[in-house]
């Protein structure tokens, strides 16, 4: 359907959809994201929902939101301030309005604004009626519930079911406003509700009615169009972080010729990895929903001992439970992947909110000297590559590898360029066979300091492993003091040597200058974009983003020392900063936020600018003005 009204071309739009947690906002957001991605835009999303399944209806605690930015240029975040905000009730309005830019579009479901809802939202009067609202924003009050009821009346649904279609009405209106095609969502409706034809027909009618409302009502004078982005050529799909992790794991299992065992216990925000992997049984994936986190990781070690690709995942509290077993896995020197999809901590913390505060837990959260490699994806799509890389390192070095994702990456999505199978790295795995007459040495090390992965069932290689200290080469239990120190050193050296087989750190910007921004994990997009803006403003600032955290790339020390100042933005109280200062004796400055929310670009720009050396800063301001 094409509009007859004026269409204004814009470079990008940031929109947030907010309503009650039963209003279907996540569904609406996902559909808008997919449709925008299919239109060729670059997209980035930020779903934000309460920890409760159904927080009390209509209250501020029950507000569920979904933010998406779609653009015709490459973007790395879901955007800072909103160009448009759609709210289904007063609670959604008052909790989200602060992020809408002046002059931005506010679309409100007028039917959701009544005395009962005001009371639930804890507001004294109708917030839409405040004169400041009309003066500050472009406000559209739409009686969505009533219009939806009219639109679906012929399908004979109960009022309750009919009212549930109002998110599709809102979707139709949003689609009209931003020139989105209805087709992908119509396909979705027919796939999802195919078995309930009346519901499918009603949702379709609501979607079309929303679009038609935009087209016919006098209120909207123009709509907006975002052209396709110029992305690297290839075939794309939209992907969420946890989905990409699951695909990366399956790909790793295939390229290494191994079946996969995935042992886990449900926990937010890691559970979706399990949900994805259970669908891949025909790839040889065995998923085990254990009785607890400890059982999950121990079963994973059992599978690794048997020669299978072994993976476990959890979030912070579950990783705490897995700590003892991870120490065992490290001592047994068996390959496996341990995924931590971080969330707000400590303890149960903020289960549905993002944070990066398990880095030190990953580094040191085990008893004794227990180093393990740590990798961190930087975006939803990067989860795929990092999963394959984690398995490569695990098998080359015979060691559990920790992978630090986070809630922001896990639930966020972006266009993902589908890799060619031939581009995937090959992972060669060999298991030793008996050498006639030679005694088998299970802890004899190769040039990587890695021991052989001898698996049960192989004649002539019977051996015993365990958590008691090993004698060098024979693997027998040893309490010899010098042997213990020697083994501690060898295990640490093995992990340190991984630095020789990972790429050097790349840098965005000059290799020396006034200020270096150092980040890791899910803050990549915000840090990259903020750096870019500061560079454009004439500042001497560069950015490095660590995907390898233990060990770090070989050139990190040199890079850190090549700048006058180093700033380390993190969604924690300064954990990477502590590691960098300890390892490289460089006086890094922290920029820390622990609010369960990702960084905005503007707060990072401010942090960078406030740390620029005064002279350079003045100079840049002049450049900026001149520009």
């Amino acid at each position, binding site marked *: 359907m094409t509009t007859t009204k004026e269409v204004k071309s814009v470079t990008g739009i940031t929109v947030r959809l907010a309503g009650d947690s039963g209003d279907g906002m996540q569904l609406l957001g996902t559909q808008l994201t997919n449709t925008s*991605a*299919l239109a*060729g835009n670059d997209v980035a999303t930020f779903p934000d929902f309460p920890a409760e399944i159904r927080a009390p209806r209509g209250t501020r605690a029950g507000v569920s939101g979904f933010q998406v930015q779609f653009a015709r240029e490459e973007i790395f975040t879901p955007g800072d301030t909103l160009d448009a905000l759609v709210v289904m009730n007063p609670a959604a309005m008052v909790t989200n309005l602060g992020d809408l830019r002046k002059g931005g579009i506010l679309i409100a479901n007028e039917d959701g604004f009544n005395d009962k809802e005001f009371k639930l939202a804890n507001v004294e009067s109708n917030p839409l009626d405040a004169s400041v609202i009309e003066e500050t924003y472009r406000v559209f009050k739409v009686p969505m519930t009533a219009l939806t009821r009219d639109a679906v009346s012929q399908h004979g649904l109960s009022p309750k079911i009919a009212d549930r279609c109002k998110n599709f009405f809102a979707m139709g209106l949003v689609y009209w406003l931003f020139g989105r095609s209805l087709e992908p969502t119509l396909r979705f409706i027919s796939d999802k509700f195919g078995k309930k034809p009346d519901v499918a027909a009603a949702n379709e009618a609501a979607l079309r009615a929303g679009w038609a409302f935009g087209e016919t009502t006098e209120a909207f004078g123009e709509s907006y169009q975002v052209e396709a982005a110029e*992305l*690297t*050529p*290839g*075939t*794309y*799909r939209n992907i969420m972080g946890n989905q990409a992790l699951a*695909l990366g794991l*399956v790909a790793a299992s*295939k390229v290494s010729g191994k*079946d996969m*065992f995935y*042992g886990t216990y449900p926990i937010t925000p890691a559970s979706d990895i399990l949900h994805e992997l259970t669908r*891949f*049984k*025909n*790839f*040889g*994936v*065995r998923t*085990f929903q*254990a*009785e*607890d986190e*400890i*059982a*999950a990781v*121990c*079963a*994973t*070690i*059992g*599978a*690794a*001992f*048997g*020669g*299978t690709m072994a993976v476990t995942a959890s979030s912070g509290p579950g990783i705490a439970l897995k700590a*003892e*077993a991870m120490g*065992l896995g490290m001592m047994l020197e068996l390959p496996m992947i341990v995924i931590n999809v971080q969330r707000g901590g400590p303890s149960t913390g903020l289960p549905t909110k993002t944070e990066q505060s398990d880095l030190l837990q990953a580094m040191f959260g085990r008893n004794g000297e227990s180093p393990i490699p740590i990798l961190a994806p930087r975006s939803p799509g990067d989860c795929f590559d990092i999963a394959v890389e984690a398995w490569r390192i695990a098998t080359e070095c015979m060691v559990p590898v920790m992978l630090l994702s986070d809630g922001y990456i896990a639930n966020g999505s972006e266009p993902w*360029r*589908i*890799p060619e*199978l031939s581009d995937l790295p090959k992972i060669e795995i060999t298991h030793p066979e008996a050498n006639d007459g030679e005694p088998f040495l299970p802890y004899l090390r190769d040039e990587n300091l890695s021991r052989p992965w001898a698996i*049960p*069932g192989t*004649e*002539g290689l*019977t*051996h*015993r*492993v*365990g*958590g*008691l200290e090993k004698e060098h080469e024979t693997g*027998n239990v040893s309490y010899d003091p010098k042997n213990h120190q020697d083994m501690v050193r060898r295990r640490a050296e093995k992990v340190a040597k991984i630095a020789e087989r990972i790429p050097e750190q790349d840098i965005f910007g000059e290799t020396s200058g006034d200020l270096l921004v150092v980040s890791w994990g899910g803050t990549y997009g915000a840090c990259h974009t903020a750096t870019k803006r500061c560079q454009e403003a004439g500042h001497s600032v560069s950015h490095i983003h660590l995907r390898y955290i233990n060990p770090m790339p070989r050139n990190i020390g040199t890079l850190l020392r090549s700048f006058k100042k180093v700033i380390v933005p993190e969604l924690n109280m300064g954990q990477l900063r502590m590691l960098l200062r300890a390892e490289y004796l460089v006086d890094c400055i922290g920029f820390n936020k622990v609010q369960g929310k990702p960084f905005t670009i503007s707060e990072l720009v401010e942090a960078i600018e406030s740390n620029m050396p005064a002279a350079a800063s003045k100079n840049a301001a002049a450049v900026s003005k001149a520009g």
Partner: protein
Amino acid sequence: MSLPVLKAADFASDQDIRWCPGCGDYSILAQMKKVLPELGVPREKIVFISGIGCSSRFPYYMNTYGMHSIHGRAPTFATGLKSTRPDLMVWVITGDGDALSIGGNHFIHVLRRNLDVNIVLFNNRIYGLTKGQYSPTSTEGQITKSTPMGSIDHPLSPLSVALAAEATFVARSMDANVKHLGDVLKRAAQHKGTSLVEVYQNCNVFNDGAMAYAQEKKQRADNVVELEHGKPLVFGHDNEKGIRLVGNHLEIVQRSEVPDDDLLIHDEQDPNPSIQMMLARMRYPEMPEPMGVLRAVTGVATYNDQINDQVALAKTKKGEGDLEALFRAGDTWEVE
């Protein structure tokens, strides 16, 4: 070509055994080495997995594959291994503290899943490795290093727990009765599904003689009833006593006073565990304690079979996984 015939000595590893002199563990180790060659399973196809405790040093002493893991978790390591390598024969070696305290949760779950592994639970009713604290099976009032005024915990019966978890094979034997122990271990090995063998094991350092009533020849006849499928429950020096079911409880009778037809006939194959549970609850000194196989139910699907069957079924239904198709599932678009 015929397979080489193995002997008990072939299953001995080159490691020095470091249990206390006189420990009941030696006897269990000896019976295991004797039984394994009779099973016809190659050494390299056998894996021993243990937790922590005196008993859990067991894998080091066997010339098979083995893993000495962490406290209480041996059943979970076994789950990962057996689920992915159903071709292996997996033994779990554990103790009363390991299996029932820290590992209580995993003990229940491995049994209810009916993973095809064999659990041998050494029960000496004391913590040996940590030097003498009471265990979940210690008797009420037992004076130990951590209970100077006597234990106030009610003891847990591994057999009752196993039956409550609807385990398919539940048995008891003891270290001193070597032939009986060997026979029970063999039957456990041959069972498809989780087998649990509780072994009364004397800790001569911290709890010496705790189960003398069941172990010493002089007392044993009066305090133990040996179970045999299809046979009546009789015991005593001259088998002069029997057990009969009256209403919903078991009682001891003199065979001279009641006809043998009144005695309880042991049915290890009864899928209803109620009477087997009554046997598990017979405790010294009120009742003789059962020895032998309480329950051996066949035909229950195993976890390892089912997890692998689902993979096979998925392959039949959807075909062998195709990465390219998986990557391209759903809506995709081209950028030129």
